[in-house]
Structure formats: structure tokens, C-alpha cells
């Protein structure tokens, strides 16, 4: 990491050492760090959008008269951007499932690729089911 500050300590019993500090822009130094920060950041607008959804659900509980879904172009653009973030976050999360999940079948470990593919398949099926339910209600 880039050293950003000079901080030395010199306790009488220990040799004096230099303690480096991480620079604020450490995540800009490497592509890997940058993508990690992007991955983590995508959760922020996603959380904001979900908070708005909870608010809308609460308003809808009072009946159709209290429900005014926003339809401004700015909100649509924001929603599309959030959808992109959600897809990227989901992609990174599911791709890492192969590293995390360690399952054995007949005493043999299931290959990471199979686990990742099964995660994506489950994601696709769950999305299709939710879409079908929502479209069914809308009709």
C-alpha cells in the first residue's frame, strides 16, 4: 500500500519502527482493488432503491388511492442504473459461490463450476417465477 503518513513510535523497550498508513486512494492503485470497491459500492444505490420500494408498499397498504408510483424519466433512468448494479452484484456474488460452497456427493467434492452454474440456474428460475407472478397479478 502507498504510505500516506509518517508515524513513528519509539517506546523505550522496543526498537523504533515506522508505521505506514494506507493512502485514501489505495483502491485506485490496482484493477482488482477497484473492481472490489465497485462490487461493494453497488449495494448502496440498491439499498436506497429497496428503501423506496418498502415505502411504496407501505403506501399501497392504504389502498389504490394512496398509491402513486413515480414515473418520471429521472426515476426510470435511476431504476435502470440500479438494475445494472443489482445484476453486477448478483453476478459477482454467484460467481464466488464456487469458492465458498464445499459440498460432497458420494464422497466426491462437487466441482466449483457445477456449483456456480447451479446457482445461476436457480437465480434464473427464481426470477422467472417472480416475473410470472407479477405479470399474472397485473392482468
Amino acid at each position: 500500500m502507498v504510505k500516506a503518513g509518517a508515524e513513528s513510535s519509539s517506546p523505550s523497550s522496543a526498537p523504533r519502527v515506522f508505521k505506514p498508513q494506507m493512502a485514501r486512494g489505495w483502491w485506485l492503485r490496482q484493477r482488482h482493488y477497484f473492481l472490489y470497491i465497485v462490487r461493494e459500492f453497488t449495494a448502496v444505490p440498491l439499498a436506497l432503491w429497496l428503501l423506496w420500494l418498502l415505502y411504496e408498499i407501505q403506501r399501497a397498504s392504504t389502498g389504490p388511492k394512496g398509491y402513486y408510483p413515480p414515473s418520471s424519466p429521472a426515476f426510470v433512468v435511476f431504476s435502470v442504473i440500479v438494475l445494472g448494479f443489482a445484476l453486477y452484484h448478483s453476478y459477482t456474488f454467484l460467481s464466488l459461490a464456487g469458492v465458498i460452497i464445499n459440498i460432497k456427493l458420494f464422497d466426491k467434492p462437487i466441482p466449483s463450476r457445477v456449483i456456480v452454474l447451479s446457482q445461476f440456474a436457480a437465480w434464473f428460475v427464481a426470477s422467472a417465477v417472480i416475473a410470472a407472478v407479477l405479470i399474472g397479478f397485473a392482468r
Partner: protein
Amino acid sequence: MAEKRITLRTTRFDPDKDKAPRLQSYDIPFSDESMVVLDALNHIKSHVDGSLSYRWSCRMGICGSCGMMVNGIPKLTCNAFLRDYWPRSITVEPLSNFPIVRDLVIDMEDFMHKLKSIKPWIIRKQEYPLGAGEHRQTTDQIDEFRQFSECINCMLCYAACPVYGLNNEFLGPAATALARRYNLDSRDQGIKERLPVIADAEGVWECSFVGECSVVCPKGVDPAKAIQQTKLDTTMRFVLPYGNREE
């Protein structure tokens, strides 16, 4: 034909004179294509400046002593070839995220403390008498933990970990990988003694899966995998009925 040369910029820090580390340039002959950064440092120490301090031992990627930042990337300098950098200059700095004792030498005390805290040895509730023979393991049982036992404690993973850089209380990649190595060993019965350290807030749960620790590991160990699998295991032990059972 002019002699091929390469420039090394190395960190210099004398705790008795300097307030902060500085970089010093050395122009040295690049006489052999098989030269590594450690050879260049040895050349400087032998022929240019005998006061340059750094750690090294085996020169063959086994001891894990010569880890340094080479152009900002944690590497074993015995495995970083000059030919991969020439004709550009090479900047050699001490491993990131550790206090600097002198020049390229870091203070390993924190790492040694963390290593000891996870009890990296086989723990038995009751030892068999020697006459009972050896603890036998199948190939599958060895394969469970083998990759995590390849760690040479070079600390490159700690230098690559921004989480450790931001919070030195974090147990870190190598110590967790080693804890997993013993927890997966069929001969070991010490998981309950290690859990308070690895399942702590400053243990595996501090990790946010940057993954760079596994990228820089010179021995192909995957500490990020060890940490994430430990998260899953500790959660299952907590959630499932009888998950916290004695093993």
C-alpha cells in the same frame, strides 16, 4: 557491446536517523538472464552498499523470508526475475501493512502472535499411547487440507490485504488458512479451541472477500477460500441443530 544494466530503487530507513523511509537508486549490472530481484539486492549489499538490510534465506521459494513489494506487488524476491521488468526500473519496498524496522525489514511480531493464536498444531482430546501406532489417513482425508498446508508464512497475503491494512486486528489470510488446515485434518480435535479466535468479529467475519490474498500467494494456497468456507462452517455450526456438537 555495452554492459546491460538495470536500476533498482529500494527503500532505505535508518530508525536512528530517518523520520520516514526514502527511496535510493542503484544502477547495477544485469549480467545474467536468470537474475532475480534478490540477486540484485545481494549485488548491492556485496559491491555497492553493505548497509542495505533485508531478509532472505533459501533463495528457492521455500523459506518465505524474502517477501517484498516489487513495483507495488507483494512478491518473493527470489522468484521475481529482472528480465520481466528490464529495461524499466524496479522499485523494491518492504511488505505493505507492516511496521518497518529498517530498510526492507518489517516487524513480524503481529503475524507471529496471530499465527500462535490459532494453535497451528494437531490437538487431541486424549493422546493415544505410542504403542497404538500412527494416525492413519486416506488420500481423500489428506486432500481435504493439503492445499492449506502449503503455506510458507511469507506474509505476502497480508501485504495484499486492504482489510488488514485498514484494521491490524484482523486475524488475516494465512492464519485463517492454517486454522482451516488443522480443522479439516481428520487427526485433529481442536476446532472448539480455535473457534473463539477464528469466529470472532476480528476473525473471518472481518474479511469482505477482496480475494487478492489468493492472487499473490506464491504457493497456490487459496486463503480467501479458507476464510469464506470457515464463515459458512461456523454459521452452520451455529444455525443447525447439534451444529455445535463436540467433534
